[in-house]
């Protein structure tokens, strides 16, 4: 295959291919998508490893993400310092995890982090309340939200500490086989 592109070195492309689930063509295509968000910020030559970060507003305006109620959390989870601004590495990482080739455990891990709003490695009741509100557009009453969260914790919390740990979450995921196909963004 001819190395006709000049954006990355072959070593960089090999590294990306080894670290994500994408093929070479898909990586280049994703780079084009990344660049389209801000052509003046993103250079065409990544061989020098430039440190370019796109702000969250641009990422959140992508058609694949703009209507997703969790887009802010997704960007925060995958960005390097948790503020939603993503480098190309973070961008590739995000879509690699959300692609259909990622295994269930990896997706469960990141889904857990997305739903963990306060980043304490547990999904506590306040996290759940925020999730429910995002899922229903804030249109349930506070009491209903409370009931729902209590129900979820009651059903899923195996070790009885009042919040969901990663294992509880994974245990729940095993019982929802649709998760693999719904936690998936096609790009």
């Amino acid at each position, binding site marked *: 295959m001819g190395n006709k592109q000049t954006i990355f070195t072959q070593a960089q492309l090999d590294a990306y291919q080894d670290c994500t689930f994408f093929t070479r063509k898909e990586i280049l295509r994703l780079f084009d998508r990344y660049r389209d968000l801000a052509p003046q910020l993103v250079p065409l030559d990544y061989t020098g490893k430039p440190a370019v970060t796109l702000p969250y507003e641009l990422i959140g305006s992508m058609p694949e993400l703009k209507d997703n109620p969790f887009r802010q959390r997704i960007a925060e989870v995958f960005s390097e310092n948790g503020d939603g601004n993503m480098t190309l590495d973070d961008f590739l990482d995000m879509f690699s995890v959300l692609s259909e080739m990622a295994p269930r*455990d990896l997706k469960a891990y990141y889904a857990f982090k997305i739903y963990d709003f306060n980043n304490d490695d547990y999904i506590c009741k306040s996290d759940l309340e925020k*999730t429910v509100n995002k899922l229903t557009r804030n249109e349930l009453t506070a009491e209903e939200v409370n009931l729902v969260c209590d129900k979820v914790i009651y059903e899923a919390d195996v070790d009885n500490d009042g919040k969901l740990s990663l294992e509880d979450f994974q245990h729940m995921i095993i019982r929802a086989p649709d998760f693999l196909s719904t936690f998936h963004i096609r790009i």
Partner: protein
Amino acid sequence: MSYHYNEAFENPDYHFSETLEIDRKRSSQKNLFSHQSPYNSSLHVSSGEHGGRGQNYPLAVRMASMRHGSEYSEDLPTVYGLSRSPHGNSMDNLSFEPEPELALSPPSTSHLLHRPDTRRISTGSEEEKLVGNLASMSTSERIKAIQKMPENMKKKREIRNKVLKEITEKSRRGRAQLSRCTQCLQGPALLFRRFGNSLAEYFHALRLWHRTLKIIGAEFGTSVLSYFIFLKWLLTFNLFSFLINFSFITIPQFFAAEPNNVSFTGLELFTGAGYFQQTVLYYGFYTNATISKIKNGPSYNMQLAYIFTVGMYFAICFLILLLSMAKSFCRNFINPQTYSGNASRLLCTWDFNITNEKAVKLKQKNLRTQIKEDLMEVNREVLNLSARERLVRIVIHLVSWAASLGTAVAACAGVYFLSINNAKLFVNWHKNDLESQAATLVLPIVTSLLNTFVPLFYSWLGHLERFQTPGYRIYVTITRNIILKISIVGILCYYWLNIVAASQSQCWETLVGQDIYRLVLVDFIFCLLGSFFGEFLRRIIGTAVCASWGPPEFDIGRNVLELIYAQTLTWIGILFSPLLPGIQMISFSIVFYVKKVSLMMNCQPPRKAWRTAQMTTSFMFLLFFPSFVGVLSVIAVTVWRLKPSEECGPFRGLSSMYAAVSNWIKILEGYTASKWVVWIYSNLITSELFFFILSVLVLIITYLYWQIIEGRKTMARLLRKQIINEGKDKMFLLEKLRALQRAKQTVRAWRGQGQQSPYSAGSSRGTGFPQARSSGTGAAEALALALRAREAARWEDEDDDKDF
């Protein structure tokens, strides 16, 4: 399976109370210590996947004995202390201990690599260990392991570079002989991998309809998308079949083609007879000769080619279906014993595919409604029905089943009588006028009408009955549809194999091929019409005339069953009409676009939940079990039992199609060079002993795996109980220690404030104790407090001792 476990267990220093580590990596406000440790140790008891197994049991025994007493001896911190990181200074994310699939995953030598699935690497020597492990794996395994790591890209790249450096160092470092061999293998291996990668890329680049699927998924979600993905998958079967048949059977036939002197009228497109009869479309046209273009040159035996091509195609299809089914089942299987709560699905079912604003709003509204209904438990039918009501229900169910089965039987009888009529038409074969040709279309049209309207009747029946859950109604309706379709196909096969084949007509295989062609074509036309009437008109009615109905929803079950029916017909027809898959390919492509346009224009996103994963697996199973296996039996009967027609086709004059193979083997016996083929044939393929041994082996292996599964199920159940018990133990402990702390606090306050507060000493001695512990929430915080209090108590005792 955990790095921590290995080291912590083997190091006796860690069996003390100070080893309790409470550390957080990121935010310092919450302090929760990893409470997985007791589970880990008990999990490791059962997995036995690494050394130290013998040591695990005493621990489990100790824990079991501790559970029942309220005596919590000093041994207790041992259990918690096992979670301690061997590198105590770092603030680790200890909460991501190994995965719950521990009990289910088979033991493997690279067990240590299962950790990276759900665990972040946080310390230096752990990383070195990981790098060492990765370096010792094969390339593809290594790449897979790196891809699976839950780290960000920078970290993964670092690790990858370290691993590559390690590999090159290893190969330099004193393994000269081995490295030479591996190096000379490495060159071609690298080339091969690059080639494989580029092949995979080309396939990926094909990405048929990727954009369309994305748009459909964006607006309608994963459930409707599954229909289109299934359609695309079936298309690949037809493409594959068409390619093989065309290259191996049709192209050679072109060299030995006889001229076609029948004129072409437009009606042939519908009836498949007339002009088409003398073309490569049908079995009858193929020659039975051995084709050779050049005199005494390489020859091509058409008989063997025909039978081997069809056989090979079905064998490959069988394998592909079996593997897909197994993979799908693996991914989507839920153990029915584990109770799945409805509320928990909240976290797992948000469809990230949906990217259309309207669709997102609709989905949120549906979720809202679902939650409200769940909370009010409206869906739950009142279960305390009186005996009379229950009897009435059962009677209604029985009546509906009787009605549906009766309809199916009536439909089959109708098809049977029509087909007898159809056979009479063939007797008057020479009458080639328009009327008799059109009359051949009656059977397909009636069959398609039955296939369209009887399912509607079944849905109506389903609405009449009261089922416990809506999901149950879907299952029952789909089952009835399946029974109907299987019976119709069964009757048709019976008709073809028993009546047409035994009739004295000139070329019965071509007749069967024509019948199937007509059926496929009419089915396709009805599918398009169904889209028009079912969805377009229904939308007009639903929005303009009767607004309460609303636009229709896309009926996934019915559409998928139609696809399976069409594919069954195609598979049956491959033997009699080798190019039929090509026609079906075209028809599937057209159906794809028509359905997509109709969906976008007419339908609304689904309101009720549709268990995509389970239904996809069931449909794949349906495709395999009644459909493909049925086809295989029909083909088997045709090849082994039926006498091919005398005057046409590649097997003319033989006693059965299979006789071509046995004749060939007899010829081969004459040549010494091919004795091994004859040996394989007589000892493996035709010998019953071989198949008997094979079946016994398969049964034994199945039984073994079944026992393993049962054992693991039991283990998983026990472990779950243990987890719950540990949780209760923890609660109990907390209460006790909280009480103790309170008591000590009051005693201390009473004893005076002059002494140096052991609390501050204790806090400097401990590692990473929480600063903000004012919030009362969190059992673990209280436990931390409690253990600190315990330490304080111990200091105090020492002081007391010193005092004395």
